[in-house]
């Protein structure tokens, strides 16, 4: 019986080992599949023009052409587009951060009639496809003569974003109410509680909001496509989408250079602020 038990343990250990091998080999295989496109992007970006159209495709460029980046970035007024995109992204980020946190504080901490109903309304606006509101919003901005300026892209952010209001409210709810009460007794105003207590306490949440806001507006395509026309006002996304065919036949190596440069700020941000990315997804994902 003792022997049987030991045999059982041994087979169990063998199963564990096989399971571990299976898990790690699958994970590594999936990682490789995910990394192939990125590696292919980098490889193409560094190839000579003639080598791009070789079959079968080569993974390692014969000559590493760092010069491609310079060529790609000087072909279009890239600096201009970079500046435009950065201006829009940081302004919307600021607007969303400011107003969403103020509004979230109101919903999380202050009581009043109709509050819960209005909060339900905040949540339900996340369900409305932006296409429904897109046309009348365009008409409003057209009437205001704001088309082909950055205003339609920036100003709405200063009225808060439903998603971030929701996210920040979830964070505020985890802070004990006693802190507010103590501050109130000490004569602190509601605005004082918000700016001096809530804002410092919710820095990680604000970081999450800032990161997601940055990423979305940096990559946004449809809004600038609708509102921006003149060449010098374009954003990187729009410029990139027009890049194909502009160089005569599509110069895939230059196109991949440009795509890499456009994606780089988001990638860097991701690597340095991973914690907040994960946190943001987890908080919104689970309380959905």
């Amino acid at each position, binding site marked *: 019986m003792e022997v049987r038990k030991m045999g059982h343990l041994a087979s169990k250990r063998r199963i564990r080992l096989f399971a571990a091998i299976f*898990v790690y080999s*699958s*994970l590594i295989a999936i*990682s490789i599949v*995910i990394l192939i*496109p*990125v590696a*292919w*992007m980098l490889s193409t970006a560094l190839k000579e023009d003639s080598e*791009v*159209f*070789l*079959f*079968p*495709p080569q993974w390692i460029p014969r000559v590493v052409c760092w010069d491609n980046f310079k060529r790609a970035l000087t072909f279009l007024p890239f600096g201009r587009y970079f500046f435009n995109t950065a201006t829009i992204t940081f302004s919307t980020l600021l607007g969303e951060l400011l*107003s969403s946190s103020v509004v979230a*504080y*109101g*919903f999380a901490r*202050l*009581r*009043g*009639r109709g*509050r819960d109903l209005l909060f339900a309304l905040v949540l339900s606006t996340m*369900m*409305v*496809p932006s*296409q*429904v509101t897109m*046309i*009348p*919003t*365009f*008409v409003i901005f057209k009437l205001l003569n704001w088309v082909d300026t950055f205003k339609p892209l920036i100003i*709405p952010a*200063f*009225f808060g974003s439903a998603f971030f209001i929701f996210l920040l409210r979830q964070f505020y709810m985890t802070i004990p109410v006693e802190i507010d009460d103590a501050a109130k007794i000490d004569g602190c105003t*509601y605005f004082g509680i918000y700016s001096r207590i809530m804002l410092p306490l919710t820095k990680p949440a604000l970081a999450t909001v800032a990161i997601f806001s940055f*990423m979305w507006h940096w*990559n946004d*395509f*449809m809004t600038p496509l*609708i509102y921006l026309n003149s060449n010098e006002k374009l954003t990187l996304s729009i410029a990139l*989408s027009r890049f*194909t065919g502009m160089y005569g036949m599509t110069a*895939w190596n230059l196109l*991949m250079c440009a*795509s*890499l440069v*456009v*994606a780089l700020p988001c*990638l860097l941000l*991701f690597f340095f602020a*991973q914690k907040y*990315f994960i946190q943001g*997804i*987890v908080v919104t*994902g*689970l309380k*959905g």
Partner: protein
Amino acid sequence: MSSRRLTRLARQEEKYMYLFISPWLIGFILFVGGPIVASLFFSFCNYDVVRPPIWTGLRNYLQLVADPLFWQSLKVTALYSIVSVPLNLMVSLAIAILLNQNVQGLTVFRTIFYMPSVISGVAVSLLWMWIFNPEFGIFNSLLWQVFHIQGPGWIMSEKWVLPAFIIMGLWGIGGGIVIYLAGLQGIPTELYEAAEIDGANPWYRFWRITLPMMSPVIFFNLIMGIISSFQIFTQAYVMTGGGPHYASLFYVLYVYRNAFSYFNMGYASALSWILFLIILGLTLIVFKSSPLWVHYEGTSRGR
């Protein structure tokens, strides 16, 4: 006296509550509520932005029923969603379960899986255009070198353009994986230990513990998946422009064209209302069906 004091305080608090939420309230009226009403009005009008709208009653909606491109865009979007949403749900759950096996280097794997979601938008669309290039792209080259299969024309082929979009969508499932992983880590290990003592095999544990415990998260990802897959735009606009021969004319692309290329704002409004009703209907179906398959801890939730 003290109660009057309280109500005065309460009234003041209410005033401040409205003050604090006023940015959202104003924004809601200007950019959501107002536009929703206006959009409904436009959908019954002939409207090109330049001239004032002309009321045409149900004409847009009748025209829509007879419009082959409306049906085509609906078909394309529905086909894509029917395959892509469940596929993404299953694959990301499977990967999350793999990641949850006490894996060493979890952060490294998680970083790799999430990375594609960070570089969304035009850059990703261009990258995949190049990957799917039938002659010089890496996809067909790998198919040939590894399996000796002559790959199709992908985004240049009517038949293969949707599968191409589905494969591309699969590349960006990192967000779903992270949500699932968080859910999996919230399942109490005692449940598995108890089941193991009772002699339950891994398969049984998956069906009886993991899946029920994960159902709220699956529910969330399912709803998000439906909403986002019905709103695909950038990829189609950048990669195919709806082609070849309307085979990738996604619904929102058709709405966009009507609104901002042909300036048929009324017709586009009608189209977007149909989209809204479809998404709402699907979401409601998922919500209504949820008591059958979504398990919440402490079941008597709605008591």
